[in-house]
């Protein structure tokens, strides 16, 4: 089963890369952007077959390694 994880920076954390991407997009003519925030996306293919168990494991992975909770939030996208 494949589970996806999206990691985003928390609201009050500065994202200089997102800012530069925003500026570049504006330079390309996209002038209606309020803000760009850069994040990370993971696809985890697990042997686990039980949805609930798999999600719990991935949550643990997020807390322990994938995200740094001081600056990042994570969102687990459950398999359909």
């Amino acid at each position, binding site marked *: 089963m494949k589970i996806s994880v999206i990691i985003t920076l928390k609201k009050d*954390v*500065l994202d*200089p*890369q997102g800012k*530069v991407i925003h500026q570049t997009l504006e330079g390309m003519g996209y002038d209606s952007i309020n803000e760009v925030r850069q994040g990370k996306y993971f696809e985890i293919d697990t042997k686990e077959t039980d949805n609930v168990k798999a999600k719990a494991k991935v949550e643990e992975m997020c807390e322990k*390694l*994938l995200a*740094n909770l*001081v*600056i990042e939030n994570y969102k687990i996208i459950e398999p359909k």
Partner: protein
Amino acid sequence: MKSSVITFPGSNCDRDMDVALKKFGFKNKMVWHADAELPKSDLVVLPGGFSYGDYLRCGSMASKSKIMQSVINFANAGGMVMGICNGFQILVETGLVPGVLLRNKYLEFICKNVFVKINDKKNKYFKNVHNEILEFHIAHNEGNYFCTNDQLKEIEDNNQIAINYCDENGKIEDQFNPNGSIKNIAGIFNKEKNVLGMMPHPERMIDTSLSGEDGSLFFKNLINNLK
């Protein structure tokens, strides 16, 4: 005095640290990250470099390596652990010191000499250093120290800030902040002050013909404090 320098895949200041420690009298051992046991040490150093190619977040992979559990146990038992640059990034990822190190504010890799002001001398790292201001070298892409407001309050209440970026006269201002760190923080302690993480490299300042002597001051003092 015995020291251990941990080498991770991608460390590149481990040998410099070995040279510096030996120059000032430490009996140093190099320890591989995949080892489980830490040799008997009075000081453990996590050196600078690019452990695991800075994958995921700088220091995040190294913080989970086999030797780190021994380093964490050593630190929690009161052992002296110092993380320099990437070593500082590894320390924040283990949670031994609070906060995180973000990408530098202006997205540049910074490589230059800076001045830092010692904020606290009631610890074994800076006790008896006569100078208030030291000139060290920095070389990093992710040295922008950040923490939550609650963490900052705790850090300040416990006097955990070790050094701040400043000018040659010790003025701590925005214009002397190379990377955007909160409060110009260049290095911090854990609550007990046996763990120190800092971005500057004292091991690059141990020879007048190469750089400067402020690193020599630091190491000479450190070994005396540990005796």
